[in-house]
């Protein structure tokens, strides 16, 4: 039965239904409601789990690492700087091949400090070895979290469920929460093959020398590649049992005979779909493709979906500063490898909570200029020119240097 739930509440209920035995977190906006709700469930006896309010995100990540190593299911959630503070532990969790699941309530990264949504936080840890699934709606957040535990435990890989902060976490919308029996049926109890056990001592996280370190890294890469069919199969199995599917790796929308494809990630795709409908009504051959699974990067699936496109616009809410759009660069590489030279435009927008309205998305579609020469182009166009924000007072490097020198010599006045 559908209920109108706040996104944080919905995803916390989904976490409860997955029966984690350890929940550890450190509060950070916009993730806090998720953990507050779970803490309440533990206090009310509705969830049998140890709730640990960690001293930092580094601590929270370390706690769930340890918990899963002892063979129990665990949950944590964070965002932004919190995720970055976890970074070292994220790499360790992945390298130790621990099936940890977390929610990232996607938020911009400072400076300047900004609590609003974009994808810079999770994109910045894309190389840590975590599966990353980005959701479009709160229903998908619920369903994906349940899938995530299955995926993690089948693949021995950690999974990050990425949901847009505020845009999803703080929005009330209709959600169908499955019953405990349905979730139990889909998600069997966790039986970890490498559980730490004092009766059978073994080492977890030992050192590795040059003669075998590379093999561990190579095994991680193979496991990631092997995760792709698992993600697809489990989304299909989920559909059989719950009557909802979310596209597995990719979700195509009106791609049939689409000449232009708008490709993006997360909750902005709702507005993109509305724009596609409008443009299709006007006779434009346009479709949309949502990248649900960003890690592992589904290069072959993307090539298959985009083979017929004549131009591709990638809408990105994150940037690799100094290089440009992250998804566009990887997409160009995938297409290039398949011998496809379709121009790919990278448009950066929606940073730090700036609203990507249907009007803006339509303008991006109408105004993005394509030239055959921009195949393989490095860099990105900002939908919103950064020079619109003046630095006040105007920053003069020469003057600043003079002042600095004066300070160093102790001759500065005032």
């Amino acid at each position, binding site marked *: 039965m*559908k209920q*109108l739930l*706040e996104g944080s509440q919905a995803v916390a209920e989904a976490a409860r239904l997955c029966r984690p035995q350890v929940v550890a977190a450190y509060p950070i*906006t*916009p993730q806090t409601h998720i953990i507050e709700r779970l803490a309440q469930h533990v206090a009310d006896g509705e969830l049998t789990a140890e709730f640990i309010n960690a001293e930092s995100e580094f601590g929270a990540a370390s706690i769930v690492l340890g918990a899963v190593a002892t063979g129990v299911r665990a949950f944590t959630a964070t965002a932004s700087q919190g995720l970055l503070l976890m970074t070292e532990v994220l790499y360790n969790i992945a390298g130790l091949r621990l099936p940890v699941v977390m929610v990232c309530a996607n938020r911009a990264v400072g400076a300047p400090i900004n*609590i*609003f*949504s974009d994808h810079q936080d999770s994109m910045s840890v894309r190389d840590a070895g975590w599966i990353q699934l980005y959701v479009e*709606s709160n229903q998908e957040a619920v369903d994906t979290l349940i899938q995530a535990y299955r995926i993690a435990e089948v693949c021995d890989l950690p999974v990050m469920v990425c949901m*847009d902060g*505020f*845009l*999803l976490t*703080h*929005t*009330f*919308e*209709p959600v169908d929460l499955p019953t405990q029996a349905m979730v139990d049926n889909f998600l069997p109890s966790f039986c970890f093959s490498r559980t730490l056990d004092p009766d059978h001592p073994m080492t977890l996280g030992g050192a590795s020398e040059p003669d075998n370190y590379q093999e561990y890294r190579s095994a991680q890469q193979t496991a990631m590649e092997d995760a792709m069919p698992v993600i697809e199969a489990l989304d299909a199995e989920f559909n059989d049992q719950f009557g909802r599917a979310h596209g597995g790796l990719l979700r195509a929308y009106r791609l049939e005979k689409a000449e232009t494809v708008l490709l993006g990630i997360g*909750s*902005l795709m*709702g*507005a993109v*779909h*509305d724009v596609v409908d*409008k443009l299709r009504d006007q006779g434009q051959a346009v479709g949309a493709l949502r990248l649900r699974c960003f890690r592992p990067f589904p290069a072959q699936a993307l090539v298959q979906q985009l083979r017929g496109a004549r131009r591709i616009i990638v809408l990105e809410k994150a940037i690799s500063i100094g290089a440009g759009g992250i998804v566009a660069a990887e997409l160009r590489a995938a297409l290039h490898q398949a011998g496809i030279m379709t121009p790919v435009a990278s448009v950066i927008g929606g940073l730090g*909570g700036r*609203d*990507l*309205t*249907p009007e803006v998305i339509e303008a991006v579609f109408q105004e993005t200029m394509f030239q055959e020469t921009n195949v393989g182009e490095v860099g990105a166009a900002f939908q919103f020119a950064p020079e619109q924000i003046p630095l006040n007072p105007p920053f003069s490097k020469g003057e600043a240097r003079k002042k600095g020198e004066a300070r160093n010599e102790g001759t500065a006045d005032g």
Partner: protein
Amino acid sequence: MKSNEICFHEIRFHGRGGQGAVSAAALLALAAFEDGFESQAFPKFGSERRGAPVEAYVRISSAPIRAHNQVYAPDAVVIQDASLLRTEPVLQGLKPNGLILLNADEKPVQASSGFRWVSLPASQIGERHIGRPLPNTVLLGALAAGTGWVKLVALEQAIGNHLAGKGEAIVKANIEAVREGYQFVAQLVAQQRVEVAS
């Protein structure tokens, strides 16, 4: 944007931190959902402080709502604190002939034309029922009467469910408040002192 739909309404709430604008938006969306509509409610994203201007938004639709954008052209605005008229762009983007529901004894002297103004002393009514000058459920009743977008019974149900954790007395007081807000505006409508929204 959704001209081919039978029903699509956007409502913006303006209040001050502590007046319950975010809760009011949630209650309205819950009531619309009770009535069988698709609905969505969300606050203007930011840091909340008591007394600071707060905005919250609601969408009510007969079709699933996919977009997660802010509301820029509301069909109605609910103003929980009249002092916001002086400092906040509370009428920005309001559609022509849009409804303005104002918590005040009467319409402001310099009221913008082209909109439908409805004023009611919602804080006083709220205080009488709830014991504190809380205008939000009174204004929800008023909105239901002024627009017909949600039914009074759905609002009562939403209040019963959403505020259940706060105890029976609070639920009862808020149901009385929403009813009086409804009756206040229903009377104005009956006297043809406010047009009913189409």
